């Protein structure tokens, strides 16, 4: 099969760029821990009231000084209805759904999590700036989908 000289140069360049690019993404993901939201824990969506941490939705300070926020999504809102976390601390969101698939996405941050019934999604984030952040559901969940939102307040310590 004949390859034109310029095409060889073009493809070699493309291939090299690809390898460098994927290496950067891979190192960032697995060496520095920058993976997108995820998690392998399962729950019974009909029985969240007695499944920790969703039996007590809200903000919990952990022993190591970091924070965990348990959130239950259902059409068309979130429990708890208010969240307040400190700036500059590690905050781990744990989210699941009581009914259909939703999302828990905090505008102006990289927290953008799918909320799938039966599954627990996790993401750790540090808020640098205090203020009120908008949380929206960005996965279609029904006729009230565009009303499904709330605010999270980040306060100075």
């Amino acid at each position: 099969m004949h390859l034109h000289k310029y095409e060889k140069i073009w493809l070699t360049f493309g291939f090299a760029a690809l390898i460098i690019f994927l290496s950067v993404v891979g190192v960032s993901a697995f060496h520095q821990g920058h993976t997108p939201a995820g998690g392998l824990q399962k729950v019974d969506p009909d029985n969240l009231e007695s499944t920790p941490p969703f039996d007590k939705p809200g903000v919990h300070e952990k022993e190591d000084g970091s924070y965990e926020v348990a959130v239950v999504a259902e059409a068309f809102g979130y429990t708890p209805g208010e969240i307040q976390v400190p700036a500059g601390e590690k905050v781990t969101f744990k989210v699941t759904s009581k009914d259909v698939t939703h999302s828990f996405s905090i505008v102006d941050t990289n927290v953008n999590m799918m909320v799938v019934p039966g599954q627990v999604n996790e993401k750790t984030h540090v808020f640098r700036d205090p203020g009120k952040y908008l949380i929206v559901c960005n996965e279609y969940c029904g006729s009230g989908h565009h009303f499904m939102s709330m605010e999270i307040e980040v306060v100075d310590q």
Partner: protein
Amino acid sequence: MTAVSIPNPERKLALTNLGIAYTAFIIGTLCGLMQVFIRNDALQLPAWLDYYQILTAHGVLLALIFTTFFIFGFFQSGMSRTLGAFGPKVVFWNWVGLIITTTGTVMATVMIVSGEASVLYTFYAPMMANGFFYVGLALFVVGTWVQSFALAGHYLVWRKANKGEKSPLFAYMTVATIILWIIACLGVVATVLFQFIPWAFGWKEGINVELSRSLFWYFGHPLVYFWLLPAYIGWYVIVPKIIGGKVFSDSLARLSFILFILFSIPVGFHHQLTEPGIASFWKFLQTVLTFMVIVPSLMTAFSMFAVFETRGRELGGKGLFGWFRKLPWKDVRFTSIFIAMLFFIPGGAGGIINASFQMNEVIHNTLWVVGHFHITVGTPVAMTFFGITFWLIPFLTKRVFTKALQRLALIQIITWSIGMVLMSTAQHVLGLFGAPRRTAYTGYQHEDALAWFEGIISNHVTMAVGGSILFLSASLLIFIVVQLAWFAPMAESATQETFPIAESDARETPGILENWTVWIGVALVLIAVAYTIPVADMIQHAPPGSDGFRTW
């Protein structure tokens, strides 16, 4: 091979497919027009009509129905043009397939219109539509399979009669696209037949949501290549002929199609990067496989511009870029496709961003994604289809694509481009600011959300202006289609529109490229590597099944 036309049975088949495609197109674009106005609060729907119903119709009609029917009409005419007339069995089974596909389409559409299936075209569980919506989807896919097998049968007959010869490039690429489609559909067929239908009719309780999502995206990503590859056929095989050139390299063209089969399927997890239930390792592995399609994409870009430059120099273009001005810009059959290619440059770059693992979190399910697929399927694919329509319909109806209609066609593609630049730029930027996709009027009371109505580019109003121009352009296209189908003057033999097929030198092309068993085998191995363990894990460690919900 130089036939002025193709036999009547194929003409009727192809025209029926194209007719349904363009009917879906105009209704679908009208839905789109309503959406952009609802999103900036300029339009209130009557109580019996819901935003999400319109959104579902827009997605299904344009992304599934318009594309699929158009593609089969294009394939049927091209296969007859390059491999010779269809036998009676091929014609019969193509009709059977077409009728099944149409029946499925009608069923699903009735369910959507009657509000029984406002689940969007991704129909994510555990939202539960009327069971007949899923039956409609299944019939749609089965119908396309029947048409696919009929075309594959025609190809096999040709190969038997022409032992040892390489098939014409058009037929080769059609078969590659069909193989991709059939392997891809296995995922959606599995989830619809074994998960959704028994669950929606109440024969089985509970659904494994994560499994259904994964099976959907196993199908959902190659689906976009099923749209793209027929456009690539236009780029590789038809455009060179229109500008008077030849295919740059037969073997590389075939190799790129093989690479698309291999690397467009085992990659669905890159649509699921921000969700639980899939370990990071598997998400990353599929990310790597996703990026392999960059190789055939670069090959295609190289081939196209090589053809353009070679031809431009033949026409007397001098200097580094002199050839560029020599290209036949007044020929809308060429200009439309050239603009389509230009749109694919930012479209492809955006795709790389979307699939980039952690970077996906920035844009996942924001308006950015909507902007992205409007400058991939919505322009490179759709506008290539427009460019093909301009000669394919008069070729089939034996009418003339008159000078006046050609001028209108140029206006049509220019307005489509302007509308799309406005709309998709606004969508991309709004997405970066966090505006969600798939929402009706987003009246969130927060300064970040209020800003989505304030910028110049990043504004829902800009999006609506673009959308309105697009709808005008779509109406113009329908006018041209109707003229070409029924009203343009009949052609004399000298003015008869031809089906352009460029010469492609296959003498040096390795025979292994047409050994489908090998490539299907490699594709299945890659799929097994990418999917077996994570899918087995989803089944073994499944949470209790979800009940169905009707939240609309």
